[in-house]
């Protein structure tokens, strides 16, 4: 985290750096190469988390951006009535957090999508007057109708694409299941919007479907979370908007080059959350592919790359993968962001060298397993398989404890009674608050970094 005076002389485009952590040594016949790739963007001039972030730029000095706020206005938002009120207040807080000059719109979502502000298929430009008007318009929001999130996303896409801006972002709030369109409709909407804007998704209360909300965030490269108590919405919306205002550059792709004969086994983001990217590859010329990472402010993320190379003889060395960062541009060309990292393979008869596991690789392998066993454990619990659920969640407690993932360990302790964390011995709690179980499921993919 960074604090202090705004420095307007800084370039607004962050500098990217790539660091590779791996044990490059393989035994004779070894073929699998694992590496953790840390991508860090710095020096863009804003920050993601400090309160002052939106005010670092004077008008026109930040990157051009457009934000669409999608607020659930289905009938259930009136039960309890505080939910709708809290949603209005949270949306107002987010609007207050908009940087001057940023384009924005508010969408009311039911089984159809309605423009709440400014209307007419346009975006407003943030300023004192438009913020006031937008907040006036929020008073007219009322609950009534169903839920068809795909329609909200398609309207957001239409509005966001009407402005020629660098950053396009959505914030989506729902309190219920996506009942008034088919899962295929939502999937089609997500496919249509992917790569056009990024979107954070929030579920308020406990009547929504965790996989719908996390699915939206994954597809649109944003964050997902639960706001079980509507009173917490304003703070969460403010923080989400600050992060959005901290973004400097959009549509960054992780480009992976691998030599002939090499198979990419997987590519996943492993920090700050686990996101599987393997199947989201776009071919980018001979032996190279791009994996989307969305937009970046001053931040650092880790990726786990695993490739299988053709084995070579002792003493041989090869480049197993080259990692770089690019921004695809219209017409098929790309802007290369300069930084690159090399993933190497070196065959040795030194057993001590080839059998050691890189600490970063070991750590994130554990974090990915942690996310997986939580999901499996909760699924088994819902299906009534007590023994299976106990085994998986016990393993989760063990992994969370060993890796220092204290937040996840705390969430697990609300679902199971921990007998011995070191061995993963747990008992399922007889009674679990629905909010606790949903919080654990929503946040299961959150990881911690290796302790330095």
């Amino acid at each position: 985290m960074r604090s202090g005076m705004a420095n307007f002389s800084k370039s607004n485009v962050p500098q990217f750096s790539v660091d590779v952590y791996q044990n490059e040594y393989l035994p004779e016949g070894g073929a699998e190469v694992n590496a953790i790739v840390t991508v860090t963007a710095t020096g863009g001039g804003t920050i993601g988390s400090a309160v002052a972030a939106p005010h670092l730029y004077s008008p026109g000095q930040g990157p051009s951006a457009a934000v669409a706020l999608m607020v659930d206005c289905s009938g259930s938002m009136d039960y309890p009535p505080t939910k709708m009120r809290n949603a209005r207040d949270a949306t107002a807080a987010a609007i207050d957090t908009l940087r001057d000059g940023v384009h924005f719109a508010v969408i009311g979502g039911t089984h159809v999508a309605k423009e709440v502000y400014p209307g007419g298929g346009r975006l407003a430009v943030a300023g004192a007057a438009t913020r006031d008007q937008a907040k006036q318009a929020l008073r007219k929001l009322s609950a009534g109708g169903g839920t068809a999130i795909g329609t909200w996303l398609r309207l957001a896409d239409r509005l966001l694409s009407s402005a020629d801006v660098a950053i396009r972002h959505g914030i989506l709030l729902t309190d219920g299941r996506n009942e008034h369109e088919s899962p295929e409709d939502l999937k089609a909407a997500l496919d249509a919007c992917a790569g056009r804007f990024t979107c954070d998704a929030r579920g308020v209360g406990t009547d929504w479907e965790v996989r719908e909300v996390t699915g939206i965030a994954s597809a649109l490269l944003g964050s997902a979370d639960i706001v079980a108590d509507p009173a917490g919405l304003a703070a969460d919306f403010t923080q989400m908007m600050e992060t959005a205002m901290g973004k400097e550059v959009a549509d960054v792709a992780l480009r992976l080059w691998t030599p002939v004969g090499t198979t990419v086994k997987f590519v996943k983001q492993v920090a700050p959350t686990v996101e599987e990217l393997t199947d989201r590859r776009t071919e980018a010329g001979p032996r190279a592919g791009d994996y989307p990472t969305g937009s970046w402010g001053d931040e650092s993320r880790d990726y786990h790359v695993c490739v299988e190379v053709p084995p070579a003889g002792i003493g041989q060395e090869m480049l197993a993968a080259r990692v770089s960062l690019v921004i695809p541009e219209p017409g098929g060309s790309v802007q290369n962001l300069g930084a690159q990292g090399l993933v190497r393979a070196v065959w040795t008869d030194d057993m001590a060298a080839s059998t050691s596991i890189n600490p970063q690789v070991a750590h994130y392998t554990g974090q990915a397993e942690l996310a997986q066993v939580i999901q499996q454990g909760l699924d088994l619990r819902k299906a009534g398989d007590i023994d299976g659920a106990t085994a998986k969640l016990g393993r989760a407690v063990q992994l969370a404890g060993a890796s220092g993932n204290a937040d996840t360990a705390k969430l697990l302790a609300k679902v199971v009674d921990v007998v011995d964390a070191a061995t993963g011995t747990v008992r399922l709690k007889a009674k679990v608050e629905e909010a606790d179980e949903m919080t654990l499921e929503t946040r299961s993919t959150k990881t911690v970094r290796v302790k330095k």
Partner: protein
Amino acid sequence: MSQMPQQAAVSKCPSCEEPLESGDRFCGACGYDLSAVPARPQDSPTLAMNGSVPAPGSPPDGVDWPVAPGAESSGRPAPVHLPTDLPGTDSGGSALPPEAPHVPQQPPLPPEPPLPPQPPAADVPAAGVRFDRRQEPDEYPLQAPDPRLAADPAVPAPPAPAAAADGKVCVACRAGRVDDDGYCENCGHAQPRERDHMEQESGPVAAVSDRGLRHHRNEDAFSVGHTALPDGTRAAVAIVCDGVSSATRPDDASLAASRAAGECLLAALPRGTHPQQAMHDAIVAASQAVNALAEEPATAREHAPHQNAPACTLVGAVVTAGLLVVGWVGDSRVYWVPVDRSAPPARLTEDDSWAAQMVAAGLMSEAEAYADERAHAITGWLGADAYELEPHTASFKPDRPGVVVVCTDGLWNYAESAEEMAEAVPHDAAARPLHSARVLVGHALDGGGHDNVTVAVLPFPAPPQGAGSA
């Protein structure tokens, strides 16, 4: 870190101070296992390096080493001594190990009493190796360089790569182009690097270094050169270094050390510095160069916070018309091979290794010591982690022509004894040093090439200027 057995180990038990007999494996009083190398009793800082060290008692104008007789007008070198008749000395002027029988003859640096903490000399077995350093004077008179001589010292050129590095097609798949990082853009294979195979010839001396067959990079380095002494005769210089693989950047360490030592020698010799003193100073300079590498950028340290400081061994030789000086730290070696093969060859260095220390201290037989898995652990090296810098130097006056082989363990692992090494050295080595160095590297590769191999070959006596290739 440095765990050298001391002479005290054979005189007193390191645990209970009970007097011991040579050959004891365990202390008779307390049962202490004497095969476990005792740690040094107290810390000792790395040697302070503050200039050249003329031997006490030497004339103030410096040059007081036996002047090598100049070549006669016929070009035939003056008669020389048999090296095995002439013991070398270490930096303290003390006798060298068994291979050199003790007939001290004009030691260039007079012996000095050992440092106070060391055991009495009477307890030291005759065959032991001396590890004590002589006392360092508080101030060293600095000798003004002679501008006529310092003006044009031969500077060691960096070794030329054997093959041009700008070949564009991959050597592995013969299909891809090679990218800027040295990898094939088709199959990804690393391309041969400059240091994979290096050869250099400088006047009468030549050296060859090779990655070997089992390691992915060459962590050895060398520097060779030649210069003129104040009397106009020639001196040839070779330095060979072996990076310590368990430390970070061993290849950088060996390169820095070999360059620093080579440059130091070629600058000091024309000024009239005694070659043995110059060798000592060169090792100190090399040590400083390696120590400086430990001050690496912070980012590199963050990536590998627990790795050791860069480190390497060093071995070197200076050959003049009448004198042969060797110097070393670690387990790289110098061998003497007479042209007349009926005369015995000799190894001129004593490894800073666990096995050598065990044997020298009389704690184990050679067979026992070298069978131990700790045998090849080195007990002396250059680098910021080194417990204490102990440069060993020795001076010889061979009485007949021969060649000096300066090498890393990548070679001597395949020709350990002096006789085996002599067997591997071609008979025309003195006339064709580069060819001989190639043959010796080939010997190691034929044997398995399990390590990086580096060897320098210097003919003795150094041929006069104009003789041989320039």
